[in-house]
């Protein structure tokens, strides 16, 4: 296969990953890396570099649609970005010390967990009391409800902040958006309403990824020849997926996708342990 044909295959695989990632809420980046390494034999470092850039593209590209709805919490997002960007910087530096085989295993585990998290039915628990820190930082806000603006409280700011730091480390270490963990920090720990958590998480993903992108670039993980079809593919796929999201019957598709993702995750873990992926 020559480079033109290879680029076309990479574009197709990335577009599919972006499309299904947007449709299921798992994100394109977390799927594109195992697809590149397991299916196409690309070195893990090139794959995470290309995937990280594509994560920025989807986050920035989808921002407009999310903002129009008025759910994202700018102050909470910015405050928590201190944790995610510092974590991402640390994680990106760690890629130099952590061996590729270990990266593959960690990636597989995180992939399994994110897949499980996105397919599980979630129950929303509303915060009953405010964390005094949330008031001091003016984190609490409102979102548009059917009968006007609904005010919400925020709990456990320190716990959420710590988990965001961890989400940042994983993002920098694995070249992913860490969307699942960001949402957990906001809705499970801080008890921020779902719609606010998911939309705020989406715009935080781009800023978090930008913090490790500089390190990736100087390390040479961002190879232009490979990143070009990956970024263009994930971007077009995810824009198409976001448009399909409204009113689509996604249940059978989700199950198929869950199986594929699970299989890829096991291949990553297996490849890491046997030294096939390094």
């Amino acid at each position, binding site marked *: 296969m*020559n480079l033109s044909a290879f680029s076309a295959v990479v574009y197709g695989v990335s577009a599919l990953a972006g499309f299904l990632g947007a449709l299921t809420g798992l994100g394109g980046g977390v799927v594109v890396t195992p697809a590149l390494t397991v299916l196409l034999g690309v070195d893990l470092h090139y794959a995470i570099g290309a995937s990280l850039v594509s994560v920025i593209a989807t986050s920035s590209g989808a921002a407009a649609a999310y903002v129009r709805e008025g759910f994202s919490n*700018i102050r909470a997002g910015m*405050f928590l970005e*201190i944790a995610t960007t510092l974590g991402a910087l640390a994680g990106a530096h760690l890629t130099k010390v952590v061996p590729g085989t270990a990266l593959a295993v960690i990636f597989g585990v995180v992939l399994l967990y994110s897949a499980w998290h996105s397919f599980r039915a979630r129950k929303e628990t509303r915060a009953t009391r405010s964390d005094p820190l949330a008031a001091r930082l003016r984190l609490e806000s409102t979102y548009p409800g059917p009968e006007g603006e609904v005010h919400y409280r925020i709990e456990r700011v320190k716990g959420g902040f710590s988990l965001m730091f961890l989400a940042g480390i994983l993002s920098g270490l694995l070249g992913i958006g860490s969307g699942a963990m960001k949402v957990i920090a906001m809705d499970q720990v801080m008890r921020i309403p779902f719609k606010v958590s998911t939309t705020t998480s989406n715009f935080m993903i781009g*800023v978090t990824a*930008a913090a490790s992108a500089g*390190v990736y670039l100087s390390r040479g993980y961002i190879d*232009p020849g490979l990143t070009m079809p990956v970024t263009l593919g994930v971007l077009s796929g995810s824009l198409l997926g976001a448009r399909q999201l409204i009113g689509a019957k996604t249940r059978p598709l989700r199950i198929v996708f869950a199986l594929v993702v699970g299989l890829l995750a096991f291949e990553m873990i297996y490849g890491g342990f046997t030294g096939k992926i390094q």
Partner: protein
Amino acid sequence: MTDKRLEGIVARLLQTGVLLSAAVVLAGGVWFLSQNGGARPQYQQFRPPDVVLRSPAKLIRGLAHPDPASVIQLGLLILIATPVARVAFSLVAFALERDRLYVLITLIVFAVLIYSVAVAH
């Protein structure tokens, strides 16, 4: 200015950045494949690319005599810059609102991003 109007402007800024970046990457990509399309892909083993492609400053200086890989990399750099621009924009907005606490918070985030992109590693 309300937060929501501000967010609308930021969203358009981000979208424009993504579209511009995609256009540059696509143009560079077509040029890249027209020159190297027949070569064998070599991504099985990691070898860091040329130093010009790894440093934003060197890349921009080299654009006086552009080559396909640098054009793609420039497009990717524009993409990486979009969230940085977003944070810079929020910084100005919080300053206009005289919200000192959030000017400080945003400055910290901005400093981390600049450190990552601009400082050598």
